[in-house]
């Protein structure tokens, strides 16, 4: 039973690591600032969720699990708001300089 739980926790940690890797690969490969933000927000959100869930399973204590949930929610909040502010800034900078960032050729 405990072995099964540990295996499940380890699996969650691995999944989390995979999504962080995917987010970073996207950050490097995607063509412009706005597309890169897609990779960072979405992949890292689920990456952190899996890692928090895995750690909570390993801790096996309700308080620690709730603490990890709180950490995830705060990180989520910070990530989405800052992604929005960065996207906004890069969009307005692009407008100011006359170029169009992150737009498909219309």
């Amino acid at each position, binding site marked *: 039973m405990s072995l099964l739980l540990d295996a499940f926790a380890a699996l969650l940690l691995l999944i989390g690591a995979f999504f962080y890797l995917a987010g970073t690969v996207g950050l490097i490969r995607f063509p412009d600032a706005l597309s890169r933000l897609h990779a960072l*927000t979405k992949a890292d*959100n*689920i990456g952190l969720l899996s890692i928090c869930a895995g750690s909570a399973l390993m801790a096996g204590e309700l308080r620690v699990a709730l*603490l990890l949930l709180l950490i995830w929610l705060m990180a989520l*909040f910070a990530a*989405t708001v800052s*992604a929005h502010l960065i996207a906004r800034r890069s969009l307005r900078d692009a407008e100011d300089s006359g170029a169009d960032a992150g737009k498909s050729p219309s």
Partner: protein
Amino acid sequence: MNRLSLLRAGIVLVLLVLVWLILDGLDSLLTGLVAAVIGASLFVLLHVPRPYHLRIWRLPRFVLFFLVESVRGAVDVAWRAFHPALPIVPAMIDHGVELPAGQPRMLLVSVISLLPGTLSADLDSDGKMLKVHAISEDPDIAVRTLQAQIAYLYGLIGTPRP
């Protein structure tokens, strides 16, 4: 301060005590109460009264929607990142915002970035038009679905469908 604001401050107080319990356990509840009271008074000082409120019994439905969609979003973006041909077609769409100012609108702007293929790029100063950056097909439907879910969560419409 009207009764709704008072009720809200009370809810914030309870939530903050809960946060304290998560952080510190039961050891020094009195300090926690003092901290929560200070935090709640900060809320009273800063908050702007709003005419709507979150329907707590509708929260599980929203959380489920959010979890499923954000996992889909992450898988989608991971697939695109690892795909040799890098299949992303960036596009910018404008989308009208029907949600009122405050929490519902903040929720829309934050959560839209976690759904598959959409990212909130800019909200104009009166909050009526949201620029959404998309890397996949049908971003309109995603925004509309999310708006309906949030409106339902806050009791602004009677059904969670657009």
